[in-house]
């Protein structure tokens, strides 16, 4: 088991001068409290730096020393920074130091290349030769599993990648999980059995060639083994390309993750811009319709007045026309009466008319002589002409249609303005992010995905070619067995033994993997149940990537998880891995409670001591108050430090 004893840092980040954290010998939790910017993540990076020689910022590896050295120290001519970690492993005390100093001590270092690094590892006070240092460290705490011991709470989100398919980050984490669980020992054994089997077959061919009765088959076998070697070289080349491509893909994923939020905002911005274009086109169509409708619009303005005119003139015209009609009728009557008087007979019944009646009729004729005055005739003509002209001018109004179109346009304008405001907000949010670069990364990732698919198809084809050659080799090997002497029998037996061992390890990998998954699922579920506050969540289900899905009490999966719940699931996985891993060591957690609410955080604090024997928490007080830490951890809280601000570039570590 690995146990930290002391960490010394000098001029590293905000830690000016030499500062030390002592880790007590007993089991439990050490807490370092510090507000944002005081150096919590720097402390985590100090441990990472001394162990592996790099820092991690925003999820990616960095190695730029000029960014690490304390700026105050640099100003006063102290150009060197260092970290020393003292730890116990296997009963021995180790002291590991990394010192970065300028290549030219008289010159102020400005860039990474201005520095050189020294690296020492002592075991029980004796320096281990530099050639062995990396190997010893690799045995004590391999870098590939460091993510389970040195972790940034903000990066716990990465573990959701295990649930996602086709993610390179997920594949990388899976690899680390299997490594911490000890699976590489089996996979390496399987590879060795494969190599030894092939060597045995080559040996078999050589032995057969030395014997007259088997020389022909032996030569054939040798040719086939050589062919396999060539094909294997091609496969290795493809696998190398694949590995390189996967590495590139991982880098792109990490880069993209940094700007993941920005990318989705940029996509949203693109959608909004497209939507605005579509809305503006609709607006143009509506304006065109309004223009068409407005061609006779001047007439609509006259309609009311014309209506009034028609109404008023119409009445007078009607009176004049009635009068005119009456006059026409009177003329007819007058003519009939005058005829009757002249012949003194009724034109209808032809009876004689008496003189007394003629006088009356003459009187009547006199009365019928009433005519339209000239003025009235003129007026009648004027009004008739006016009416026909007004009817000509008056037209059907399209006012309602235009109003509807105007309303539509107003709606569009409101919508477009809302969208423009949203775009403005997005632009403010993504300010400083290289939009073009982010999009390029996204495109590169898509392209590399396609290339990986093609390459994997090529690898499968090449594997098939090798499998065909292997089939021929097996057949030739079998033939030799029936033909051969004692030496050939022995060669064949060797080949078969390696073949069986290869199959056995292959099966062992599958079975051990299943066994591990079951154990991880079981232990993670127990932890999850003690951490979650949601009674409907009954457990976790593991997938082939060791990704954990929450299962509800109705048996259904929880498909959408909040950042906080994601955090709880990741911590459950961490705890289960710690329990099942052969490797035991300290866990350093940076801001592990940032995403947790005030119900989950105390649960996690209480559970920490069962996750590992030595835990160092780097927290800010709002995330975990000293009172809560003491209440929940009690005797398991073994030491407390705080990061006190001296200035913006100077933090002092103080033991509480």
């Amino acid at each position, binding site marked *: 088991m690995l146990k930290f004893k002391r960490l010394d840092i000098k001029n590293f980040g905000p830690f000016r001068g030499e500062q030390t954290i002592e880790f007590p010998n007993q089991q439990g939790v050490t807490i370092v409290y510090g507000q944002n910017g005081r150096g919590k993540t720097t402390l985590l990076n100090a441990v990472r730096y001394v162990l592996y020689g790099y820092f991690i910022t925003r999820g990616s590896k960095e190695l730029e020393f000029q960014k690490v050295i304390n700026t105050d120290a640099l100003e006063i001519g102290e150009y060197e920074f260092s970290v020393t970690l003292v730890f116990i492993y296997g009963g021995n005390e180790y002291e590991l130091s990394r010192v970065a100093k300028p290549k030219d001590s008289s010159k102020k270092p400005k860039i990474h290349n201005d520095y050189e690094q020294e690296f020492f590892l002592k075991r029980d006070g004796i320096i281990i030769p530099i050639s062995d240092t990396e190997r010893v460290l690799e045995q004590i705490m391999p870098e590939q599993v460091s993510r389970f011991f040195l972790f940034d709470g903000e990066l716990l989100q990465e573990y959701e990648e295990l649930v996602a398919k086709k993610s390179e980050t997920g594949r990388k984490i899976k690899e680390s999980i299997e490594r911490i669980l*000890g699976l590489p020992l089996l996979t390496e*054994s399987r590879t060795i059995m494969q190599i030894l089997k092939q060597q045995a077959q080559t040996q078999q061919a050589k032995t057969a060639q030395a014997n007259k009765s088997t020389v022909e088959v032996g030569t054939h076998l040798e040719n086939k083994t050589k062919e396999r070697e060539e094909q294997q070289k091609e496969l290795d080349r493809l696998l190398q390309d694949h590995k390189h491509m996967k590495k590139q893909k991982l880098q792109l994923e990490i880069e993209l993750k940094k700007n993941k939020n920005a990318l989705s905002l940029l996509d949203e911005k693109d959608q909004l811009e497209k939507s605005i274009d579509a809305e503006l086109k609709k607006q143009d169509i509506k304006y065109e319709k309004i223009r068409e409708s407005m061609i006779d619009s001047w007439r609509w303005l006259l309609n009311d007045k014309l209506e009034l005119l028609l109404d008023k003139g119409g009445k007078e015209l009607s009176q004049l026309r009635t009068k005119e009609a009456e006059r026409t009728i009177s003329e007819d009557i007058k003519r009939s009466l005058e005829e009757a008087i002249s012949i003194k007979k009724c034109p209808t019944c032809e009876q004689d008319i008496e003189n007394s009646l003629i006088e009356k009729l003459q009187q009547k004729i006199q009365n019928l002589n009433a005519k339209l005055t000239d003025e009235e005739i003129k007026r009648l003509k004027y009004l008739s002409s006016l009416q026909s002209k007004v009817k000509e001018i008056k037209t059907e109004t399209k006012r309602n249609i235009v109003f509807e179109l105007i309303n539509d346009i107003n709606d569009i304008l409101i919508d477009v303005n809302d969208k423009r405001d949203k775009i403005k907000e997005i632009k403010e949010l993504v300010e400083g992010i290289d939009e073009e670069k982010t999009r390029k990364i996204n495109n590169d990732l898509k392209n590399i995905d396609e290339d990986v698919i093609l390459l994997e198809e090529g690898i499968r084809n090449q594997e098939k070619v090798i499998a065909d050659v292997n089939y021929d080799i097996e057949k030739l090997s079998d033939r030799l067995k029936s033909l051969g002497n004692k030496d050939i029998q022995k060669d064949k037996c060797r080949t078969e*033994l390696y073949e069986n061992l290869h199959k056995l390890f292959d099966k062992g990998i599958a079975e051990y993997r299943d066994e591990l998954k079951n154990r991880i699922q079981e232990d993670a579920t127990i932890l999850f149940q003690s951490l979650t506050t949601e009674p409907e969540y009954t457990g976790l289900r593991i997938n082939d990537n060791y990704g954990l899905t929450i299962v509800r009490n109705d048996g259904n999966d929880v498909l959408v998880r909040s950042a906080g719940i994601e955090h709880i699931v990741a911590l459950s996985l961490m705890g289960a891995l710690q329990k099942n891993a052969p490797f035991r060591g300290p866990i350093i957690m940076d801001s592990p409670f940032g995403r947790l609410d005030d119900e989950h955080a105390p649960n996690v604090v209480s559970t920490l001591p069962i996750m590992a024997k030595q835990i160092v928490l780097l927290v800010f007080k709002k995330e975990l108050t000293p009172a809560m830490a003491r209440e929940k951890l009690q005797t398991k809280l073994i030491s407390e430090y705080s990061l006190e601000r001296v200035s913006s570039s100077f933090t002092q570590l103080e033991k509480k």
Partner: protein
Amino acid sequence: MSDINALTKTLIKIQEDEFPEVPPNLITEIMKIQDSYSQNRSEAMKKIGKIVEEHLNSKEFE
């Protein structure tokens, strides 16, 4: 950094069920070698080759 006992137990179970012709002690020895030389493949191969040869030499061939 492996639980060598758990790994070996899994392999021996498979050997008993499916590969009775493979000597179980050979598996145990291979696992020990692998555990000791996990950082050095060529050395591990040499050691494994040696114990396999010892096993073959102990057998009779006609």
